[in-house]
């Protein structure tokens, strides 16, 4: 499909329906918060959020397969947009289900309406990044998403830990944003454009046939990677993660661990693959090193944690490392530099996208069980999980499913995702790819220690005390749905999902050639 930007008469609003739906949802929530009776807030706004995200998810089908751009290339609706929007919206839906009753009962919190509004803006920002076709759009999206998340972290505003985490997150976040925008400025300076395809085209000529790069380009690349590394929580830019995750209310943590990360990966893919693709040889190894350091650090430090929530925080760092492997073995021969019709997509990027989806389901699931237990008066340490299997067998079973999936045990979705990443790494046929594949396997063995420790404690230890009974229907449904999805999606529909994830990198070639020719 050809993209003739100059021929577009005006903004194509119809192309942005899912994003507009979330924007509309945010507005509705704002008005609802302002004009409705306080007592109704919880029920009505929860319902509105669910319907809004559901509607937006359904509207994704209008974008599917269109591969078009509008607003002069600022907004793109292509395969990446659709897949990542799907992930983000599903995560939003699950977050609402997980957080509803928990947030409502939180002590010293902000009004419930604000929670939903902030959530909606954060989701909107992430969606914007996923659909960005321009540096400015990426930055605005990331900032919109981040700012809302900073506040969400401090949602329990009277709790010291929450405020501390939020403040650290905020300070380091703006630090990283500054670096990122600095890097973007260097990119603009070197190429003269903020349009991603334009950057690629400019780099195409700039990098052709030269072994060594212009320092300005390298600086642009490195600064960008540092900024994105922070958002992804890659080591050594991860330091905010444990404190912020620990400080935030558990459902917020679940959200934070997924949606901003998905947005960060969206930005990374857009920037590195789409715009800086011609400099691939320069960033592949750097990403590979960062991926290794990240998964090694995350896994090793997680071993020492006795607080389950903190353990999950480090585990999410480790998973960032696994995901980065998919990026580090990007090797598409199509793209901008080689003509000829490339047919298959890029296995690396595809595996990364699929991994994000898997990670979304299982990670929110694990945090959801933690939240479910907090509802019932349990703490966050390992001892609080003792004997869970005998007092609350279903919760223990669900937790076991999520942990096994995070570990990568068949037939769960986590196994399938890890398998795809490892396969992509091996198929890259490079020493780095092979080393990364081996690292994933070895470090997964390390991760088995801290994941299985929780399972062992749940099943083999004596319960310490009898828990409170609570009614949390929405949360229960959410956990059940996630457990089933974690168990089944690795086997069923995985072909379709991987195909969906593959669409973008397949289409990338076509678009790029068309752009390059025009």
């Amino acid at each position, binding site marked *: 499909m050809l993209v003739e930007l100059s021929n577009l008469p005006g903004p194509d609003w119809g192309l942005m329906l899912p994003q507009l739906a979330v924007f509309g949802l945010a507005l509705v929530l704002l008005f609802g918060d302002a004009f409705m009776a306080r007592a109704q807030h919880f029920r009505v706004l929860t319902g509105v959020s669910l319907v809004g995200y559901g509607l937006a998810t359904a509207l994704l089908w209008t974008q599917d397969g269109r591969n078009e751009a509008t607003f002069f290339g600022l907004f793109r609706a292509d395969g990446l947009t659709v897949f990542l929007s799907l992930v983000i919206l599903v995560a939003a839906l699950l977050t609402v289900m997980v957080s509803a009753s928990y947030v409502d009962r939180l002590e010293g919190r902000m009004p419930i309406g604000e929670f939903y509004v902030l959530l909606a803006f954060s989701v909107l920002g992430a969606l914007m990044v996923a659909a960005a076709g321009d540096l400015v759009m990426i930055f605005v999206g990331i900032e919109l998403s981040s700012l809302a998340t900073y506040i969400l972290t401090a949602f329990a505003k009277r709790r010291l830990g929450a405020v501390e985490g939020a403040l650290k997150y905020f300070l380091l976040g703006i630090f990283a944003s500054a670096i990122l925008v600095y890097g973007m400025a260097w990119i603009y300076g070197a190429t003269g454009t903020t349009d991603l395809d334009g950057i690629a085209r400019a780099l195409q000529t700039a990098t052709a046939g030269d072994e060594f*790069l212009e*320092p300005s380009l390298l600086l642009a690349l490195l600064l960008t*990677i*540092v900024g994105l590394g922070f958002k992804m929580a890659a080591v050594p830019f991860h330091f905010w993660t444990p404190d912020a995750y620990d400080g935030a209310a558990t459902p917020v943590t679940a959200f934070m661990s997924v949606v901003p990360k998905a947005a960060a990966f969206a930005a990374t893919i857009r920037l590195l693959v789409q715009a800086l693709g011609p400099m691939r040889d*320069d960033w592949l190894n750097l990403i590979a090193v960062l991926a290794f350091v990240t998964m090694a650090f995350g896994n*090793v430090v997680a071993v020492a944690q006795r607080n389950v929530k903190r353990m999950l925080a480090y585990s999410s760092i480790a998973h960032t490392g696994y995901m980065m492997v998919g990026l580090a073995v990007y090797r598409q021969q199509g793209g901008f530099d080689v003509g000829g019709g490339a047919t298959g997509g890029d296995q690396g990027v595809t595996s990364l996208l699929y991994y994000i989806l898997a990670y979304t389901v299982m990670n929110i699931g694990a945090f959801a069980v933690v939240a479910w237990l907090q509802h019932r008066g349990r703490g966050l340490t390992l001892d609080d999980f003792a004997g869970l299997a005998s007092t609350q067998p279903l919760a223990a079973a669900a937790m076991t499913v999520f942990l096994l999936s995070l570990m990568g045990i068949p037939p769960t979705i986590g196994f399938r995702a890890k398998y795809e990443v490892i396969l992509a790494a091996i198929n890259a046929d490079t020493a780095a790819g092979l080393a990364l594949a081996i690292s994933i396997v070895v470090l997964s063995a390390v991760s088995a220690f801290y994941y299985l420790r929780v399972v062992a404690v749940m099943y083999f230890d004596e319960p310490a005390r009898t828990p409170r009974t609570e009614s949390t229907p929405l949360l229960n449904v959410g956990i059940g749905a996630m457990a089933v999805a974690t168990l089944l999606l690795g086997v069923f529909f995985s072909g379709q999902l991987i195909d969906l994830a593959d669409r973008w990198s397949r289409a990338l070639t076509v678009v790029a050639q068309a752009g390059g020719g025009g």
Partner: protein
Amino acid sequence: MESYLFLIPLLPLAAFAVNILLGRGVIRDKAHWVAAPAVFGSWLLSILVLLDLRENEEPLRQHLFRWIPAGDFHVDVTLFADQLTAVMLLVVTTVGFLVHVYSVGYMHGDGGYYRFFSYLPLFVFSMLMLVLADNFLLLFVFWEGVGLCSYFLIGFWFKRRSAANAAKKAFIVNRIGDLGFGLGIMWTFWTFGSIAFYGEEGVFARAGEIGTGTITGIALLLFLGACGKSAQFPLHVWLPDAMEGPTPVSALIHAATMVTAGIYLVARAHPIFEQSEAAMLVVAIIGAFTAFMAATIALVQNDIKRVVAYSTLSQLGYMAFALGTGAWVAALFHLMTHAFFKGLLFLGCGSVIHGMHEEQDIRNMGGLRRFMPVTTWTFFAASLANAGLIPFAGFWSKDEIIVGGWISDYQPIGRIVAVVGLVSAFLTALYMFRLFTLVFFTRSRFDEAHLHPHESPPSMALPLLALAVPTVLIGFVGFPPEDGPLHHFLEPVFADEGIEPEGGEVASLVAFGQEDGHEPAGGDEGTAEGGATGAAADADHAAEGEHHVSTATTVTFGAISTAAALGGLLLGVVAYRGAGSAAEIVARDRALTRGLYPFLLNKWRWDELYGRLFVRPLSDLSTFLWRVVDIGIIDATVNGVATGIGAFSQRLRHVQTGLVTNYALAIALGMVVMVGVYLGLFSNLFR
């Protein structure tokens, strides 16, 4: 038409599922009502298969599903029934059903009743699938399946140490054979690119295209598997110990069916074996040796079941040497008759043991005919059949094997094993009637005041009677010799090959008879030797058809083997008549066997030899690997790594200081390092 094939194995499988799931809580002591009718259903269907195959000779096939799709290579689960399968089906289901009925009485009141009636149909299922398999891999799966059931059932009374050990021994010894079998299958796949039996791409159709070395290797490996399962020397040591299992199990698995799987395998794979004279030679020698060795051991054993167990070994040896001499039909004929009379013998043993309140030592029995007439006379019939007396079943089949060896074109080995077979036949009659005399006749050597032997209940007696019928009559399916209904029925299986041993044999015999010096390849030595020793037997060799042996030969051998059997029988009766005490029996054993007595009593000392040669060194090596390599090196490494990571982790966690300035510093430092390295290495800044 053949769409019912799947029901044959499915019925016992369903019975297994029901009993294992519901047996403990719901069904309990009614478990036989599930298992026995299921096997009965399989029996009816097996008869249907038999009738089908009699009508038209085309094998039945039923494709169930594709098990392993892997590119060009695929393994299907297809049920396949030709005449060979049909005979096996009938044997398995008939004996299987009768043993089920028998077990109702025998296992009555046992704590594991439902467990027993779960394993038994599971075994029947596996065995039926084994004979219905249409490729090596599927056969192998159920080969292991029957092995597993055998393990379960030998160790059925697992609280008894000896039973648990026997089960382990059976399992481990079978591992050796199965390893060979597995390698044989792999080699087959490597050579042919296929593991299917029949069809254009099948292994059998292309067996002739392969070099002799390869085909011999494959055949010998397959036979190693057969040796394990059918308890042929040198892997025979597990079978006598397997008698620790309940007696119905011994009858069904360790006499009538499972142990014949090896014979079945060789018969099934006969197109492969036929391509290799060396392999045939090995099979024949091993078989003959086992037949003889086991018969000698059986002479002096005192445990009633062990005598019969060694007899089983010996008879399996007969079958193996029939296979090795190319007398395929004879081997299967003996397999069939043996299944019935040996099944009957074991059930008789069970009846005796049951009636004697778990006494198994024949030195403590005697005179039981007064207490259990049904057992006595059915046992008598089975003993005669086992001894090979005309007209009982064993006579016809054993005689055919010996004749088959004599006229085989694998000479001189065929004649040697035929003679060994005759000697063994004499020994067989001797030990059978030593046993029969000592158990049912002579004076009772137990305290009749305390022990009251009794006849078994009808559920046990009826199967005895039911099995006595084929024991007496089944031999006539092979009558007249070499030309009976069984031979015609099985003809399509063994006649469709291009290279036919019988054909070669006839050619060689004809050549010999005319003495015109026209020798077929490989037969010259044999013919020369034959000329010296067998002139009388070879008088009339203008053979009418491919499978036929002259009447004179048949009659001569019939007479010789009858004489041998009768001699053994009489010696057995005379030598042990009136033995009044345990000591006296031992004395007579010694008198009969002279200096060989300790050697025979200790079963040729194979167990001791294996213990010293394999078990002890292996155990020492294992201990070394465990103590030094595993604990010292592997565990230490693994634990060291774990401890190391844990310690490292504890240190690393302190990086997370909680101070936001430190974090920012880390980010900045990371950036500086990255930028420095990259600008230095990859840019043209410093160039």
